[in-house]
C-alpha cells in the first residue's frame, strides 16, 4: 500500500508505442505531467529526437513483440498506449501487453471498419480506451456546425451541458457591460462566463469584468439555455443547411455521416476516383464530386460562394489553411479548419482562421483525462478534460463518487484556489449553474475551469 502511494506521487509508468503526431503530443503532455515514459518505435531517428526534447527513454523495436515490451519494462508499467499508424498493430500491442503485464491499455483505432464495433472490441480485449482522433475531430466539427456562431463547442455531462467559445463582434449589446450588470438585467440567466481572452491574455473574469469588442468569451450552460442566451445578445443559433467538405478521408466520412443524420446536406470533393466510388456507396445521401478541391474554378462551379459552411479536411495542413482563407474571402460560409501538425501554432492563431480543430490534441486530452483519473484516488473521477485557449486553461469534469470534505458544503464556504471557477453541476439529468449557496453532492458531475494544470481529483480545487 505504501509503495503504491509513493508511486502515485511520482507519476505512472507509461509505455507509448509509436512516435507519430499523436505519440509526440502525448509524450510532450504526459512528460510535463511528471510521468515516467518509455517510447517504443522502429525508427531510431524519431525516437532520438523525442528523447532529446523530453525527459523520456526510447527503445527501438516492434512494439507488439514480447521481447521489446519486456525490455521496456511492461511488467511494472501502469499503462500502454498504442498509437502507431496501423490499427491492427495497435490492437496487437495492447493484447500482448494485457497478457504479459498487468497494465491498462489504450489503442488508437481509426478505420471505419473497426470503429463501428469499437465498444465490442474494447470490452472483449479488455482495453481501457479506444481512441479515434478522426471521429472525435468530426464530432467537434459537427458540434460547431450545429451552432455556427460559436468558434468551439465542447460538451459535458453526456452532451447536456455545453462549453461555448465565441468572439464579440463590433456593436454587440454586451460591449461596455459588466458581468454583474448582465445578471441584473436577466440576460445571463442560467449561463456562466468562465474565461475571456483579450489581446493574448486569458483570464477567469469576476463580476466587475467589462466586455470589449474582439474579446473571446467562453461560457457554460445547458444546451437550450445557451441558445436562449446567444439569441438574446443577437446571434443566430440555427444550424447550417449544407456543408462543403474538401477531401474524402476518414474524418470526412465520419463528419458526413453525422451531418446527414441531423439533416444537413453534404457535398464532398475528392480527387481519387476509387475513393469517390467508395464514399458514394457508404454515404448514398451525400453528393460526391470527383475533382481537385484546390481548383478555384471547381469550387466556384460547386457554389462555394453560396455555401452555408465549408470544411477543408485534406491531409495537408497548408492546403486546408489556404482553402479556409480563400473561403472567407469569397463567401460568408462558416469555415472550420483541421490542422494535423501543430508546428507554427502561433502563426496559425494570427491568421484569424475562425474555428480550428486539432485532432491530435483532442486525442491527447482524452488520454490525459484517463491518466489523471487513474493517478487519482478513488473517490472522484475525471470524466472529460478540455484544454482551452492554447492549453492555458483547463476545463475538467469530475464525477463525485464518494463523500469528502467538499461534498454537502455550500460553495461559498469552501476555500477554493484562486483562478478557479466551479461553473456547472450536473445532477440527476439537470444542469445547475451554481451560485454560492449550492453545494456539491455525491453522484454529481462537476465542471471546473481553472488556469492550474494537473488536477487529478476534485479535492485539488481546495487551497
Amino acid at each position, binding site marked *: 500500500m505504501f509503495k503504491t502511494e509513493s508511486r502515485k506521487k511520482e507519476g505512472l509508468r507509461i509505455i507509448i508505442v509509436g512516435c507519430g503526431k499523436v505519440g509526440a503530443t502525448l509524450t510532450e503532455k504526459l512528460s510535463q505531467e511528471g510521468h515516467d515514459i518509455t517510447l517504443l518505435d522502429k525508427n531510431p531517428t524519431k525516437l532520438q529526437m523525442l528523447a532529446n526534447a523530453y525527459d*523520456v527513454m526510447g527503445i527501438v523495436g516492434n512494439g507488439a513483440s514480447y521481447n521489446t515490451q519486456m525490455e521496456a519494462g511492461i511488467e511494472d508499467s501502469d499503462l500502454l498506449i498504442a498509437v502507431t499508424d496501423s490499427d491492427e498493430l495497435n490492437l496487437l500491442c495492447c493484447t500482448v501487453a494485457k497478457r504479459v503485464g498487468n497494465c491498462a491499455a489504450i489503442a488508437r483505432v481509426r478505420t471505419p471498419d473497426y470503429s463501428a464495433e469499437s465498444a465490442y472490441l474494447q470490452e472483449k480485449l479488455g482495453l481501457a480506451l479506444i481512441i479515434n482522433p478522426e471521429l472525435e475531430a468530426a464530432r467537434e466539427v459537427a458540434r460547431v456546425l450545429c451552432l455556427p456562431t460559436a468558434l468551439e463547442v465542447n460538451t459535458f455531462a453526456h452532451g447536456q451541458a455545453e462549453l461555448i467559445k465565441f468572439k464579440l463582434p463590433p456593436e454587440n449589446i454586451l460591449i461596455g457591460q459588466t458581468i454583474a450588470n448582465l445578471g441584473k438585467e436577466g440576460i445571463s440567466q442560467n449561463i456562466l462566463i468562465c474565461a475571456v481572452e483579450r489581446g493574448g491574455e486569458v483570464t477567469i473574469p469576476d463580476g466587475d469584468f467589462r466586455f470589449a469588442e474582439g474579446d473571446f468569451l467562453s461560457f457554460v450552460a445547458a444546451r437550450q439555455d445557451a441558445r436562449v442566451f446567444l439569441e438574446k445578445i443577437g446571434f443566430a443559433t440555427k444550424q447550417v443547411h449544407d456543408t462543403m467538405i474538401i477531401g474524402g478521408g476518414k474524418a470526412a466520412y465520419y463528419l458526413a455521416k453525422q451531418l446527414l443524420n441531423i439533416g444537413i446536406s453534404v457535398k464532398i470533393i475528392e480527387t481519387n476516383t476509387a475513393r469517390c466510388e467508395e464514399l458514394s456507396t457508404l454515404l448514398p445521401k451525400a453528393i460526391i464530386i470527383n475533382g481537385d478541391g484546390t481548383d478555384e474554378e471547381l469550387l466556384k462551379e460547386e457554389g462555394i460562394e453560396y455555401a452555408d459552411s465549408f470544411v477543408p479536411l485534406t491531409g495537408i495542413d497548408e492546403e486546408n489553411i489556404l482553402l479556409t482563407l480563400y473561403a472567407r474571402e469569397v463567401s460568408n460560409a462558416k469555415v472550420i479548419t483541421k490542422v494535423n501538425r501543430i508546428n507554427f501554432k502561433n502563426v496559425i492563431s494570427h491568421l484569424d482562421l475562425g474555428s480550428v480543430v486539432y485532432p491530435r490534441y483532442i486525442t491527447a486530452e482524452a488520454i490525459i483525462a484517463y491518466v489523471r483519473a487513474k493517478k487519482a484516488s478513488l473517490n472522484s473521477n475525471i470524466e472529460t478534460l478540455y484544454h482551452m485557449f492554447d492549453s492555458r486553461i483547463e476545463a475538467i469534469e469530475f464525477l463525485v463518487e464518494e463523500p469528502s470534505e467538499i461534498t454537502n458544503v455550500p460553495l461559498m464556504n469552501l476555500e477554493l484556489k484562486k483562478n478557479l471557477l466551479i461553473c456547472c453541476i450536473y445532477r440527476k439529468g439537470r444542469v445547475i449553474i451554481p451560485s454560492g449557496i449550492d453545494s456539491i453532492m455525491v453522484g454529481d458531475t462537476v465542471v471546473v475551469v481553472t488556469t492550474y494544470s494537473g488536477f487529478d481529483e476534485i479535492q485539488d480545487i481546495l487551497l
Partner: protein
Amino acid sequence: MNNSVIRYILGYILRIEAVLLLFPFLVSIIYRERAGIYYLLTAFVCMALGFLLTLKKPASFVFYLKEGSIATALSWILMSIFAALPFWLSGEIPSFINALFESTSGLTTTGASILSDVETLSYCNLFWRSFTHWIGGMGVLVFLLAIVPLSGGSQINLMRAESPGPSVGKLVPKLRTTARLLYIIYFGMTIIEFCFLLAGGMKIFDALTISFGTAGTGGFGIRNSSIGGYSAYIQWVVAIFMLLFGVNFNAYYLILFRKWRKALGMKEVQTYFLITTAAVAIIFINIVNTASSALEALRHAFFQVSTLITSTGYSTVDFNQWPQTAKTVLILLMFIGACAGSTGGGIKVSRIIILLKTIKKELASYIHPKSIQKIKMDGKPVEHEVLRATNVYFITFMIVFSFSVLAVSFDGKDLVTNFTAVLATINNMGPGLELVGPTQNFGGFSIFSKIILMFDMIAGRLELFPLLILFHPAVWVDLFSNQRKIFSRKIGHKM
C-alpha cells in the same frame, strides 16, 4: 545560444563545490589543523559567486548539445581552479600551477601528482585530494541532475557530455531518477569497500581516502609508497574494488533489479574480465621468477592490471622495474581502459569492441565487396551514428595524443617518459613509466607541459569533444556577442 542557462549551471556547480569544500574543513577541525581555514574561505567565495551567478533565473531552461557540452567543460575548468585554491593558499603547494595540476588531476580522477613527498601534507589537504576523486568519478553534473530540478527534457545533453562511453542511455525513463540510481550505486559500493578496508585493520582516515580514490578510479595515495605499505589483504580488497568500479554501472543496475542473466550477458563486461584475466596471466608468467612467492607475484600482477585497466593509478610495486613484456602489456591496458558507463578512463572496452568489429567488417568486405553487414553489440545493431562517433573519437584521441607528446617533448625528457606522461594523463591514469613511474612524480615538467597535461586530463575525462568544442570559433562568437545580437534584432524588429 542560451548563455544564461550556462551561467546558471556554472553558478549551481560553484554552490555544490562550496558545500563539498566544507568536508575537508571538518577534517581539519578533527585534526586541529590551521590549513582548514582556507577551505572555509574558498567555500565562502564559491558560495558567494555561486549565488551571484544563480541570482537571475534564465528565461528559458532549454539547452541543446552545444550548451550542454560548453557548460560541462567550463564547469570542470572552474571547479579545478577553485579546488586548487586551498592547496595554494595553505602554502603546502607553493606554486599555483602545481596546485592547479594537483586539483585537476584529482577531479579528473587521474591521480598524477607533482608532490615528491605526499606524507608532509596536512590531513585536510590529503582528504581533499582523495575527495576530489570521488566527486569527479561519477561526475558533478550527474550529481547536479540528481538534486536540482531542471525542467524540460534537454538535460540529457549535460549527462551526455560528462558520462563516458560511445552512447549514453538512461537506466529509467526519468533522467533525475537515473542520476540518483547511479549515485546510490556509487555511494553504496564506496561504503562496502570502506567496511572491508576497516575490517582489514586500516585506520578510518586511510580507509576513507583509499575508498574515495578507488571509487573514482583516481589513484592519489596518502603514503609515498601508495598501497605498497599495506597488508596483502588490503591490497586484494583494493584491487578487486578497482576492478568492480571499472564495470559498466548498467550492470549493477541490472543486478540491483535481479536481472542477473542480462547483467552477466553484457558483452562489454565479459570482454573486460577476459582482458583482465589474460593480462594477469601474461604478467604473472613474466614476473613469477623474480617474486619471492607465486602468490605474491599473482597479487602484484592482479593489482597492477586492475589499477591500470581501470585507470586508477595506485601501485603496490614499482612496475617500472618489471621486464619489458609486462610493461608493454600494462601500456596496452592503459589504452584500453575500463567499461563505458563506469568511473574509469581510457578509450573504453566497448569502443575497442566496436573498432575491432569494424575491422572485421572491413575485411569481410574485401571478400564479398557487395555484402551488407550490421555490426551488433549485445544482440542489437549498432547505429551508424555510434560507429561514426567511435571512429572519429579514436582518430581524435590519437591526434590529441600525438600533439601532446610533441608539446611535452620540448622539456627534453626521454621518449618513454613523455609518451607515458601523456598516456597517463589523457587516460586519467596517474603514473606512467621512467621519470613519471609509480615512485616518481610530474613535478619536473615545465609550466607549459603541465598546462598541456592538465588539458589532456580534462579532455580525457570529458571524452575530448566537450572540451575541444570550446576552441571552435563559433562558440566564442556565441558566448560573447549573442546578447547584443538578440538585442539589436529586437530593436530592428520594432522599427
